[in-house]
């Protein structure tokens, strides 16, 4: 399901924002805040992240007047959030702790024998298309639950890349991670989702 604002309607949305149209702001807040929150959660705890996103929207009212559309509106908003978060971390002299040393989830790594072959190969094939799988409410709830337990760094990378369809370069720029570290974050997060769906399909349990 793709509900993203299309380029031509994005241009008219930007014009409406520049005019200070409150309906346009309501629409934009609903469209872009989830992604902005995902960016902020990469850097900050939940309540600070919400605070930053609120502050950013207030900043946007003036800043959008100078927005020239060199990047998409979504990327621009995500960069504003990332910069604010980085400034706040700089002030607090804190850094985001991340572990990029292992590319395999331990639960998956244990399924190979010492020669590097599968000991416990995947048994079931996920036959259904993503849309069909998502029609299963229990699986959708289970996915929500697992996404909420992912480390913030993995979840933010996953949300920006998969759900908000940013390009790798944009995600690296917004989250301030190298391309190779982004690959590790994405791969670790995908493995966790793979393990979750596998358990769900085999046992029906989350």
């Amino acid at each position, binding site marked *: 399901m793709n509900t993203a604002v299309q380029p031509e309607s994005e241009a008219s949305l930007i014009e409406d924002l520049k005019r200070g149209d409150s309906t346009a*702001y309501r629409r934009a807040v609903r469209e872009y805040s989830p992604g902005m929150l995902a960016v902020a959660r990469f850097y900050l705890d939940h309540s600070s992240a919400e605070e930053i996103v609120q502050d950013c929207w207030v900043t946007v009212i003036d800043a959008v007047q100078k927005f020239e559309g060199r990047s998409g509106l979504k990327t621009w908003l995500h960069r504003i959030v990332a910069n604010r978060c980085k400034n706040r971390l700089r002030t607090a002299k804190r850094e985001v702790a991340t572990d990029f040393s292992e590319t395999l989830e331990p639960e998956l790594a244990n399924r190979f024998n010492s020669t590097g072959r599968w000991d416990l190969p995947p048994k079931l094939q996920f036959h259904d298309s993503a849309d069909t799988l998502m029609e299963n409410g229990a699986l959708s709830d289970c996915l929500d639950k697992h996404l909420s337990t992912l480390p913030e760094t993995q979840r933010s990378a996953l949300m920006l890349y998969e759900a908000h369809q940013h390009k790798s370069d944009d995600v690296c720029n917004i989250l301030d991670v190298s391309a190779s570290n982004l690959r590790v974050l994405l791969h670790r997060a995908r493995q966790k989702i793979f393990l979750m769906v596998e358990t769900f399909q085999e046992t029906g349990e989350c």
Partner: protein
Amino acid sequence: MLMCRDLAEIASDYIDGELNGRQNLSVKMHLMMCKDCRTFIGNLRASSNLLSAHSSGKADEEFLRRIDERVAEALSVRKNKCSDSE
């Protein structure tokens, strides 16, 4: 020779087309011979598609309402400033 574990380590790079030509070829060769890895790659790709299909993150309505209020307040301050300067 690429082993199943090696393939599992670079599986996302393969799915996203981030491998170089030589690595890509060795993954393809391995997949031709290994049914388990074909299942794994297929399932990992399905997991990735599942995430794209899943909502792009929901924000709770209360949070959105608080933003609306802050924005409305800031818009009205801006409007007053503009009419003062006219």
